[in-house]
């Protein structure tokens, strides 16, 4: 069937209406041809022969009567080996390659394929002629950096096929036919390493979805210990501007213990992405010894890039995440900021003159947000392997007030909430995750009863602090005051973590467990402190040693030396002996 054609009959902002007499599909991609350029657009409403499209480009220069060509394809991405290390825009155009052709500025109507013809991989066949296969089955593998990339039966080939032939082991370009498959009617279909998949359709080729029960180590102490994230789970980071959402995601993208990180820079600053894309090729991933770039894909549709493509960008990112999950890998998708994506929806909805909901967001906002996070998950494939997609999204609430539609809709669906607080970021208590307001439904790296205990200390400390604001320090008992000092102590030496210190930036799980146990013993101890001034000075000394410890390389001589000093300082002023403390610790936390 020949694809439909039409003519432009109206333009307003990035909305173009076209007249088209033949068949058009909702959400199919079309191109508006103006001044020799093909501008990509998506059909978002059809009224009789009038088709309304949102254009992924500036619409300046379009005129009535310009040709429109429809493709019959939904907005899709290319899936195949070679996506890793790349930097794409929201529609999966590779930005560095575009820069090579167009220079400093983005040029509208200029598109390149995500996986170019020239890309070659070393193919090893797995399927054999005569095998029966369905979509998602492995035909062969290629090495992609540090991973074994499965070449699968394209996900859009529904039905059952018989393998007619598979090419021999060897180097092939991604668009070379690597197998011929015969469908149920005996028709032979060539398959390459690459296929397209519509971004808004979740990839659901697995046998079972599992409960996210394994912690995902971010190496950020407050997260791993108090409000953990699980592989295949979801979490959100709402916070006012400047509270540290982006920095938190940046350090997570570096240190998180996952196979692959997909960064979706959605409608925020271009400069922040640049930091990542310039630094990652230089940074070594301690888990693999290779650069961090080798496990990373960046989708970058920053705030001054076209709004319609911004809306698509989070889907482009999650589709690639699902694709790599299919290889049995653990993928972390970090989206910054989901509010910009929601705003893109709002702009589109406004142009369609839909009836607005709260703060002019469309009425379907909640279900769309839920649908997006629902694409996370840990799954078992039919060969028994397990893969996961974890989604962490920042939220940028208007006025920093969490009582707004995007934050609220997100909180309903995620498994963990890392709420950033303005007070904490003002006081430079980074990461500014509020330890009491935030929550997680997942189990973390330290035993839950220990982290609950520390939470209770923080809670009591906060109560004393609130009370002191009413009755003053003089009206507070020494015991209460010590509770307060303990909670401040936990905050400054454990919850706060210096993202810009080489050592402190990432704390491994063994190290977290180790120092957390130490910390818990300090909290359990009873002190021989005569008055508040000496209590404060004592905790200052402890803090000093502990901060020095945080700066020392794990298990180094220096670490051990400072640890010894810390222990001496600590035990000096404690009623219990070291052995007694160990007993208290054991009786409280075992059994």
């Amino acid at each position, binding site marked *: 069937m020949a694809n439909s054609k039409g003519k432009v*009959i*109206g*333009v307003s902002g990035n909305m173009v209406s076209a007249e088209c007499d033949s068949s058009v599909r909702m959400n199919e991609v079309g191109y508006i041809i103006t001044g020799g350029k093909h501008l990509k657009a998506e059909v978002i409403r059809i009224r009789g022969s009038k088709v309304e499209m949102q254009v992924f480009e500036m*619409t*300046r*220069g*379009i*005129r*009535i*009567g310009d040709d429109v060509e429809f493709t019959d394809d939904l907005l899709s991405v290319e899936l195949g080996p070679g996506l890793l290390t790349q930097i794409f825009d929201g529609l999966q155009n590779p*930005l*560095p390659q*575009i*820069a090579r052709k*167009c*220079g*400093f*500025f*983005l*040029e*509208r109507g200029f598109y390149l394929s995500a996986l170019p013809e020239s890309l070659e991989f070393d193919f090893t066949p797995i399927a054999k002629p005569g095998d029966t296969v369905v979509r998602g089955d492995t035909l062969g593998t290629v090495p992609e950096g540090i991973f074994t990339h499965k070449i699968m039966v394209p996900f859009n080939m529904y039905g059952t096929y018989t393998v007619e032939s598979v090419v021999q082991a060897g180097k092939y370009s991604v668009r070379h036919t690597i197998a011929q498959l015969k469908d149920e009617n005996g028709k032979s279909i060539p398959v390459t390493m690459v296929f397209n998949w519509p971004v808004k359709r979740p990839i659901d080729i697995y046998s079972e979805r599992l409960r996210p029960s394994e912690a995902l180590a971010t190496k950020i102490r407050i997260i791993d210990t108090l409000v953990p994230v699980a592989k295949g789970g979801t979490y959100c980071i709402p916070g*006012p*501007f*400047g509270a540290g959402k982006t920095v938190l995601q940046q350090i997570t993208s570096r240190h998180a213990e996952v196979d692959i990180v997909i960064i979706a820079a959605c*409608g925020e*600053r*271009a*400069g922040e*992405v640049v930091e990542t894309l310039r*630094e990652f090729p230089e940074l070594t991933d301690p888990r693999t010894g290779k650069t961090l770039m080798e496990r990373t894909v960046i989708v*970058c549709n*920053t*705030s*001054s890039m076209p709004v319609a493509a911004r809306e698509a960008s989070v889907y482009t990112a999650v589709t690639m995440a699902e694709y790599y999950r299919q290889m049995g890998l653990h993928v972390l998708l970090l989206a910054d900021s989901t509010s*910009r994506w929601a*705003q893109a929806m709002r*702009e589109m909805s*406004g142009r369609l003159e839909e009836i607005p909901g709260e703060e*002019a967001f469309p009425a379907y906002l909640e279900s769309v947000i839920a649908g997006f996070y629902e694409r996370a998950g840990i799954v078992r494939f039919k060969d028994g392997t397990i893969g996961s997609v974890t989604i962490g999204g920042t939220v940028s609430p*208007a*006025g*920093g*007030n969490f009582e707004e539609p995007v934050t609220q809709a997100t909180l309903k669906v995620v498994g963990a909430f890392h709420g950033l607080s303005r007070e904490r970021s*003002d*006081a*430079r*208590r980074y990461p500014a995750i509020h330890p009491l307001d935030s929550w997680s439904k997942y189990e973390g790296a330290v035993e839950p009863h220990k982290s609950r205990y520390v939470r209770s200390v923080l809670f009591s400390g906060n109560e004393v602090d609130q009370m002191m*604001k009413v009755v*003053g*320090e*003089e009206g507070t008992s020494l015991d209460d005051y010590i509770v307060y000092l303990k909670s401040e102590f936990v905050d*400054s030496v454990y919850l706060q973590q210096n993202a*810009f210190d080489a050592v402190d930036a990432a704390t491994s799980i063994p190290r977290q467990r180790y120092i957390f146990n130490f910390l818990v013993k300090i909290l359990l101890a009873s002190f021989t402190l005569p008055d*508040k*001034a000496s209590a404060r*000075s004592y905790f*200052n000394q402890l803090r*000093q040693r502990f901060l*020095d410890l945080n*700066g020392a390389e794990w298990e180094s001589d220096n670490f051990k030396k400072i640890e010894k000093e810390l222990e001496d300082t600590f035990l000096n002023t404690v009623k219990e002996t070291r052995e007694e403390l160990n007993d208290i610790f054991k009786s409280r936390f075992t059994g």
Partner: protein
Amino acid sequence: MRKIYSKIDYIAGNVITVKAKDITYGELALVTSESGESLAEVIRLDGDNVSLQVFAGSRGIATDDEVKFLGHPMQVSFSDNLMGRIFTGSGKPRDKGPELTENLIEIGGPSVNPAKRIVPRNMIRTGIPMIDLFNSLVESQKLPIFSVSGEPYNELLARIALQAEVDMIILGGMGLKYDDYLFFRDSLEQGGALSRTIFFVHTAADPIVECLLVPDIALAVAERFALKGKRVLVLLTDMTNFSDALKEISITMEKVPSNRGYPGDLYSQLAARYEKAVDFEGAGSITILAVTTMPGDDVTHPVPDNTGYITEGQFYLRNGRIEPFGSLSRLKQLVNKKTREDHRSLMDGMIKLYANFKESLEKKAMGFRMSEWDQKLLKYGDLFESKLMDLSVNIPLEKAMDLGWQILSDCFTKEETGLRTELMNQFWPEN
């Protein structure tokens, strides 16, 4: 020869509609009426109906006035002849100089490919400790001053502009008071910078649509100079006026507002302008310093709020001082690693203590007895405010850091600072 239309079907707000053929979206037209000529821009095509936004407003336009389409979008002349000149928001001379028509460039062009950006690396020294030490300004940064009206924000802007080592300055004034314009002109003249400054000024008396053009025109020119290797500083004052102009126009166009009457795309509109700040590899740069006045001293007002999410920090000006809280430079960590090894820790440590000082101050205000620790904090806060925060202080960064250590050691013991031992062994003044 382009066709002239003389039947306007519809006039509302600043928008007129005529029937015309073969018009491109975004092109300009010249509307001639009794009150003179004005440019207008095509903002909607619907079959033969062409809607235009009239820059000078539609007041006095008659249905039989002439509309002549120009066949190109908004342009501005770009050459060295712009230097030292003063223009309106639509690029017409405001001084007595000649109109410039050579080498016309389009405004509101495409954005820079993120892959072509480089990580900013040059600190701009201002001599103001609250900036240099605590919120370092960086070449190619985009950063507004948040302030209530009445604060000396234009003075601060002019002071930074003169102290910054840049090749040229472009001032975009939106709803600028004439006195303020004179103030900028005189300050830049006294500082010897007038001949390398270009003004695009919209005053409160000018048509509202022209206010919207100011950032685009200023930044389009800046971009060209930057591509030629110039380090350009763009001053935009006041972006709240710009946002209010957006609001006014979108309301007259009956768009659904999202928050306090502002359009839902306020974020994207502001970002499209601020994101023009850039450091071009192998060429020059654009640094944007703006003013965002906060209606009712409310940072959560949509304009400062959206701005804060877009820009790379902000200087929060209050009571004639740059406040440690609320002020932020998101790029500081890109430059303060290389200044001196104590810079980062000192900066964070001093602000943490300042936060403690604020708490003690609160307790004091409530009439509680001040403990020994509170006393120390009160002393610290006083010294911090008078020696570092006061805007009359003008010292180099290194002096400011030394002074910081001095203040710490005047008030606290080492362990009370929460700084690492190693660092204190190196920098703690022995008095």
